């Protein structure tokens, strides 16, 4: 049952162009990588694009946006790495930068990377992204550390509860990244078609 109509979802996004075709204005489909600081967004970005943006173990490494291209399932997709954001209500300059990407660039998929061992602190942003009608996909990263802390997550159940695709990864070793790519490709495709309907 839908409690809230899907208002505003994907305003102005291009229609359905089928797999592998660029959008009407010639721009590539886009995936925005967002999440709190220091959860591994840049590692995910590097893994997807094969480029290198700085990865460090402290919050606030990334202050600017980085863009790269990933070849997923034979399709070229633009990936955007953003500075960390805690919520959609920004406190700092970097958060404002990250939010702008979401609101103005309308990526086909918003990949929310979270620290799996701190799920409770991370989920409020997922809820906000869903609330904003953005096409969210959740990446439970740092699963190795979560497991070491004795935390086990029922990914399928979380997927059902949230109603969005959820994957589990260890970005630094590449575990789960294949699944992430596959689900990302599926989602990107279904998103750019769903809008037109």
């Amino acid at each position, binding site marked *: 049952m839908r409690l809230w109509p899907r208002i505003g979802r994907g305003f102005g996004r291009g229609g359905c162009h089928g797999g592998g075709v660029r959008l009407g204005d010639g721009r590539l489909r886009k995936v925005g990588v967002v999440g709190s600081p220091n959860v591994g967004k840049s590692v995910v970005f590097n893994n997807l694009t094969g480029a290198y943006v700085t990865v460090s173990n402290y919050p606030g490494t990334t202050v600017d946006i980085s863009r790269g291209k990933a070849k997923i399932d034979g399709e070229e997709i633009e990936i955007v790495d953003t500075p960390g954001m*805690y*919520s959609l*209500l920004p*406190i700092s300059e970097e958060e404002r930068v990250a939010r702008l990407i979401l609101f103005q660039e309308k990526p086909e998929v918003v990949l929310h990377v979270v*620290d799996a*061992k*701190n799920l*409770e*602190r991370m989920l409020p942003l997922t809820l906000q992204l869903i609330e904003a009608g953005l096409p969210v996909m959740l990446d439970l990263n740092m699963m190795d550390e979560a497991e070491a*802390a004795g*935390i086990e997550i029922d990914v399928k159940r979380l997927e059902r509860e949230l109603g969005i695709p959820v994957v589990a990864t260890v970005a630094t070793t590449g575990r789960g990244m294949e699944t992430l790519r596959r689900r990302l490709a599926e989602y990107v495709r279904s998103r750019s078609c769903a809008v037109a309907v």
Partner: protein
Amino acid sequence: MMELEEKAEELLETLWLGTEERNEESLPLENIAEAEKEPLSQLLKAGYIALSDDRVRLTERGRTIARNVVRRHRLAERLLVDVLGTGGMLTHEKACRFEHLLDRGLDESICALLGHPKICPHGKPIPPGKCCQLKRTPARKLVSSLSQLAQGQMGKVAYVYASESGKLQKLMAMGILPGAPITLIQSFPSYVFKVGETQFAVDKEIADSIYVRLVEPEDAGEIIEKELPEPGRKLRWRFGWWPRRK
């Protein structure tokens, strides 16, 4: 000082809210509900209030008393919400009933047990008592600011006291919201604590604004009974709904 009836105290409270907290000199008589007007003459006679041009104002002596009533009312609210966990059921009447029981002396003990809170659950200021300046600490506290915890002590976030919304937002971003389990790891040179699986470092100002509940509601009654002087005991039997230990 003469013993005041509950009704008289209620009226003093109303007057405090209407004048002190609105930066007004006096309150028009018509702003006071008919039902509340009954003890007016008693208070006039005691010299706690003064009347002029259909307006009431608190005298110097009256202000001291009213301030205390408000203090006890808000402490009672804190006790009900943070410790006894009556969260949603908090009503003005319940707090008012409680407040009259927190006699002088008792309010200081409760205040200390609650870690000398600065605001009530509604965000209104709690006028500080002598105990707050002395920072008296009882053997076992129910609630304490994070900065007052011992290293390694844990509890759950009771509430945060933030004077400006930016600070509140920072705390929210860190996941510091009521109910979150929290452990103090270190207190010098900065405060380091753990919420969930994450550690944070903060300065004293922020550590001062996080209040931590140290006991579960079921255990609160017993501690209050132990820590409070004689009159406190009656609290328990007067309020049969006080949660009992399982």
